[in-house]
C-alpha cells in the first residue's frame, strides 16, 4: 500500500510531470516496455479497495523533462468484463483520478497479432485522447510472415506508430522521443474519431450520446463511441446505471437505450453485434491496406510444442508430473530456510529473554511478539518458491495450457480451467494458492475458488495425520499391496477433495447470478522466454503483500493465542508442571468449557486445548499435546508422544481415552476445519472484507464438527469404540 511503497523523488523546479497511460491486450509485452521506459523507479500498489495491482513509474525525457507512466491492467476491450478491465476503462474515460489526468495513451500492440489488437486501438483513438501505438514484437511478426507498412498504418490511424522489439530494447528511444514530443506539443486537432457511422445508426444512438453530455465531459466523438458501446453491451450500460443521479435521469437513460436497440432490431441489426461489426469492418480494411501476410508453411515453435504439451494423453501426464516435481522442489528448498527462520526466531527469543527482566513484558515479547513474527516469516519460503515456479510458468504461456487441459474438470463444478492452479497449489499451502486466484477474471469464480482452497489437504496437516496414524493405525496390509496407514492417509486427502467439490457446488448455487454464466474464452499465447525480472517482481510483490497486510492480522492473533495459553499465570513459587500450567490457563479453561460440545466427537478437554492453540497453525496441535504429556521431543514421529497418547486412561473408568476411532475423528476434523489464522488473514486481504473469512471459518468448522460427529457416533454404534 502507499505507505510502504518507496516514494519517487521528483527533481525540484519542475512542474508536476504529465500523466501517461500504458495500455494493451494481455500478452503484448507491455511490462517489458514499462520496465524499459521507467527503469527501476517504479511504485507498486493497489487500486483502493480492490486487489488489482497498480504500477506507475517515472520516465525521463530530453532536457530534464519527466513524465509519470501508469501501467494499466491488460485488457481486450473498453467494454469491461472484469475488474481489471473496469479499472483501465475508468482511468481512460477520466472517471478515476487515481492515476492523474491522463492526456496521452500509449497502446502496446502485438505486431504478430495486429488485427485483434487494433480493436482496442480503435476504441482508444475514439476517446479523443492523444494516442501513440507501440508496435511491439516486430521480430516475431516478421518470423510469422506478417509484414507491416508502419508508415501507412500510422497514416490510416492518424496517430504515431513506433516499431519496437522490447525484449531487445529496440525502438524504445524512438518511443520515448515520441512520447515527450506529444506531451510538449499536443496536437491541436485530434482525429475526429476513427469510426464512420451511417446516418441511420447515428440517428439511433443520438439520444444516448446526448444524455452523456449532461453526465460527462467527454468530447463529441468519445460520446458517440461510448454511446455505441452502451447500446451494444449491457455490461457497459450497467456501468452507467450505477452512477448517482436523480431517478428520472436513469429512467431516461434506460428508455433511450431500449429505444435505440428496438430501432436497430426493426432494421434487422443485432444490437449486441453493432460495435464489434463496425470496428472490425474498418480494421479489416486498414489491415488489408497496410499488412502483407505470407504465413510460412512450417508450423511455429509454439504449435509444435503444443503437439506434445496439450496432447490428448501426454498433456495431462505432463501437468501432473510437472506439478509433483514443483511441489517436491518447493518442499525441499523451503525446508532449510524454514528451519533457519525457526531457529533464528528461537535464538532471538532467547536473547531477548536474557536481556529483559522477568515479567509479563518479557513473556509478551518472547512468546507473543517474537513467536508471532516467526509465525508470519515461516510462510515466506513456501510463498517465494511456489511463486517463483508459478510466475515462471505463467510468463512462458504454459499456465494457459494447464487451464485449457483442465477446464472440462472444473466446468462440472461451475468453475473454469483458471481455478486449477490455485487449487493445486493449495495442496502445498492454501496461502499462495489463494494469492494465485488473481488470474481468474470472473469475480464469482475467484471467490468460490478462494472459499474451497483451504479444504485441500495442505502440508501443515501432515504432522497431525502422521502423529495420529503412527499412534493408532496398525501397520496391516490392505489388498496385498497397500497398507492400512497409507490407505488412511489417502482417504484424508480424498475427503478434502470431495468436501471441496461439494462446497463448490453449494457456493455456485448460493452465488448464482443470472447474467454471469461461467464462460471460458481464453487466448493461448505463443510460448515465450520468461523474463526473470518479471518473475522476481511477482515473488517480491506476493511476499510484500503477505507480510504487510496478512502479517499484521497473524501477529495480532498469535498474541491473543499466547495470552490465552499463558494466563492467568500461577505464582512462580508454585512448582507447576507445564501440563498443570496450560490446563489452568484461559486456553485450558476454554478446553474444559468446550468439552461437553466436543465429547460427542470423542474429544476430551486436552484435545479441546489443542483445537484452540492449533488455530495458530494446524501443526501446533503436536507441540501442544507434547506439552500436555510432558514429552521432551515435540515432533509427530516422537515415540514417547505416541505411547503417551495410547496409554492415556480415564482416571474414573480406567478406560483408554484415545482409541483409533478418536484418532480418525480428529483427523477428519483437521481435514475440514479452518484451523489456520494465516488463511483467515489472507482471505481478508484478497477479498477486502471480513465477511468472507467469517463465512469460511463458520462453514468449515461446522462441516468439520458434523463430519467428526458422524464418524465417531457411527463408529460407537458399530461397536468400534
Amino acid at each position: 500500500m502507499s505507505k510502504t511503497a518507496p516514494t519517487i523523488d521528483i527533481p525540484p523546479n519542475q512542474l508536476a510531470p504529465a500523466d501517461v497511460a500504458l495500455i494493451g491486450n494481455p500478452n503484448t509485452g507491455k511490462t517489458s516496455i514499462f520496465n524499459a521506459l521507467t527503469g527501476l523507479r517504479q511504485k507498486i500498489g493497489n487500486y483502493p479497495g480492490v486487489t488489482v495491482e497498480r504500477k506507475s513509474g517515472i520516465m525521463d525525457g530530453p532536457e530534464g523533462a519527466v513524465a509519470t507512466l501508469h501501467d494499466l491492467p491488460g485488457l481486450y476491450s473498453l467494454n469491461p468484463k472484469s475488474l481489471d478491465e473496469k479499472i483501465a476503462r475508468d482511468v481512460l474515460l477520466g472517471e478515476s483520478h487515481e492515476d492523474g489526468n491522463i492526456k496521452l495513451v500509449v497502446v502496446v500492440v502485438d505486431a504478430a497479432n495486429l488485427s485483434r489488437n487494433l480493436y482496442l486501438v480503435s476504441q482508444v483513438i475514439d476517446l479523443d485522447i492523444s494516442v501513440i501505438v507501440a508496435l511491439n514484437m516486430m521480430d516475431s511478426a516478421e518470423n510469422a510472415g506478417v509484414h507491416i507498412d508502419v508508415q501507412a498504418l500510422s497514416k490510416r490511424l492518424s496517430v504515431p506508430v513506433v516499431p519496437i522489439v522490447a525484449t531487445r530494447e529496440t525502438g524504445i528511444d524512438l518511443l520515448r522521443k515520441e512520447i515527450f514530443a506529444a506531451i510538449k506539443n499536443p496536437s491541436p486537432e485530434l482525429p475526429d474519431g476513427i469510426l464512420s457511422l451511417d446516418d441511420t445508426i447515428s440517428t439511433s444512438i443520438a439520444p444516448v450520446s446526448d444524455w452523456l453530455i449532461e453526465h460527462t465531459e467527454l468530447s463529441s466523438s468519445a460520446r458517440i463511441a461510448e454511446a455505441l458501446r452502451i447500446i451494444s453491451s449491457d455490461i457497459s450500460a450497467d456501468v452507467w446505471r450505477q452512477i448517482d443521479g436523480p431517478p428520472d435521469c436513469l429512467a431516461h437513460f434506460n428508455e433511450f437505450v431500449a429505444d435505440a436497440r428496438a430501432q436497430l432490431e426493426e432494421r434487422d441489426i443485432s444490437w449486441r453485434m453493432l460495435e464489434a461489426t463496425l470496428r472490425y469492418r474498418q480494421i479489416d480494411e486498414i489491415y488489408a491496406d497496410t499488412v502483407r501476410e505470407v504465413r510460412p508453411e512450417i508450423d511455429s515453435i509454439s504449435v509444435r510444442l503444443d503437439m506434445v504439451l496439450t496432447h490428448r494423453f501426454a498433456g495431462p501426464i505432463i501437468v501432473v508430473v510437472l506439478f509433483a516435481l514443483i511441489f517436491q522442489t518447493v518442499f525441499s528448498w523451503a525446508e532449510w530456510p524454514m528451519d533457519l527462520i525457526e531457529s533464528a526466531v528461537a535464538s532471538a527469543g532467547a536473547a531477548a529473554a536474557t536481556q529483559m527482566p522477568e515479567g509479563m513484558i518479557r513473556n509478551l515479547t518472547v512468546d507473543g511478539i517474537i513467536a508471532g513474527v516467526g509465525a508470519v516469516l515461516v510462510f515466506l519460503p513456501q510463498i517465494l518458491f511456489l511463486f517463483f515456479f508459478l510466475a515462471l510458468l505463467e510468463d512462458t504461456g504454459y499456465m494457459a495450457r494447464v487451464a485449457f487441459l483442465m477446464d472440462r474438470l472444473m466446468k462440472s463444478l461451475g468453475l473454469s480451467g483458471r481455478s486449477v492452479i490455485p487449487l493445486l497449489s493449495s495442496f502445498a499451502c492454501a496461502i499462495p494458492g489463494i494469492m494465485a486466484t488473481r488470474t481468474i477474471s470472473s469475480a464469482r469464480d475467484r471467490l468460490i475458488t478462494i472459499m474451497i482452497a483451504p479444504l485441500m489437504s495442505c502440508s501443515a496437516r501432515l504432522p497431525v495425520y502422521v502423529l495420529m496414524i503412527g499412534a493408532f493405525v496398525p501397520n496391516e496390509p490392505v489388498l496385498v499391496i497397500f497398507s492400512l496407514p497409507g490407505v488412511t492417509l489417502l482417504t484424508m486427502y480424498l475427503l478434502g477433495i470431495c468436501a471441496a467439490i461439494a462446497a463448490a457446488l453449494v457456493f455456485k448455487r448460493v452465488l448464482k447470478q443470472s447474467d454471469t454464466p461461467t464462460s471460458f474464452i481464453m487466448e493461448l499465447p505463443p510460448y515465450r522466454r520468461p523474463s526473470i525480472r518479471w518473475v522476481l517482481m511477482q515473488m517480491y510483490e506476493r511476499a510484500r503483500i503477505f507480510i504487510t497486510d496478512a502479517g499484521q492480522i497473524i501477529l495480532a492473533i498469535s498474541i491473543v493465542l499466547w495470552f490465552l495459553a499463558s494466563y492467568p499465570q500461577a505464582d512462580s513459587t508454585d512448582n507447576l508442571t507445564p501440563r498443570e500450567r496450560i490446563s489452568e490457563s484461559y486456553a485450558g479453561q476454554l478446553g474444559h468449557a468446550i468439552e461437553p460440545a466436543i465429547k460427542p466427537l470423542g474429544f476430551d478437554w486436552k484435545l479441546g486445548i489443542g483445537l484452540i492453540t492449533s488455530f495458530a497453525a494446524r501443526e501446533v496441535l503436536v507441540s501442544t499435546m507434547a506439552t500436555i504429556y510432558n514429552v521432551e521431543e515435540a515432533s509427530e514421529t516422537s515415540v514417547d508422544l505416541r505411547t503417551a497418547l495410547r496409554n492415556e486412561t480415564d482416571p474414573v473408568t480406567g478406560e483408554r481415552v484415545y482409541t483409533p476411532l478418536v484418532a480418525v475423528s480428529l483427523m477428519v476434523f483437521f481435514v475440514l476445519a479452518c484451523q489456520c489464522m494465516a488463511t483467515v488473514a489472507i482471505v481478508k486481504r484478497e477479498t477486502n472484507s471480513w465477511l468472507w473469512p467469517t463465512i469460511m471459518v463458520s462453514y468449515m468448522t461446522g462441516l468439520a464438527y458434523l463430519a467428526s460427529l458422524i464418524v465417531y457416533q457411527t463408529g460407537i454404534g458399530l461397536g468400534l469404540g
Partner: protein
Amino acid sequence: MCSLDSLLPGDKAVISSISGKTNEEAHLMEMGLLVGTQVEFIKTAPLGDPIELRVRGYHLSIRRSEAHAILVDKI
C-alpha cells in the same frame, strides 16, 4: 453449413452466422470472430472440451457450448 463445434482438427472454415443473442457471443466478436472471419480448428482438449481455434493469426480456446451457436462454411 455446420456449427463451429462440429469441425474436426485441421478443418478450415468461414463464419457464416452468429446469432448475437448472448453476452458470450458478443465477447467472441470482440475477440475477432465475426461473419466472414476465417477460423481453423486446431484441437480438442483431452476431455472433449474446450476446443482450440486459430483466428486472425492467434490461438483461442473456447467451450463447445460457446462454439455451438456459431455457424460456419467449410473450405
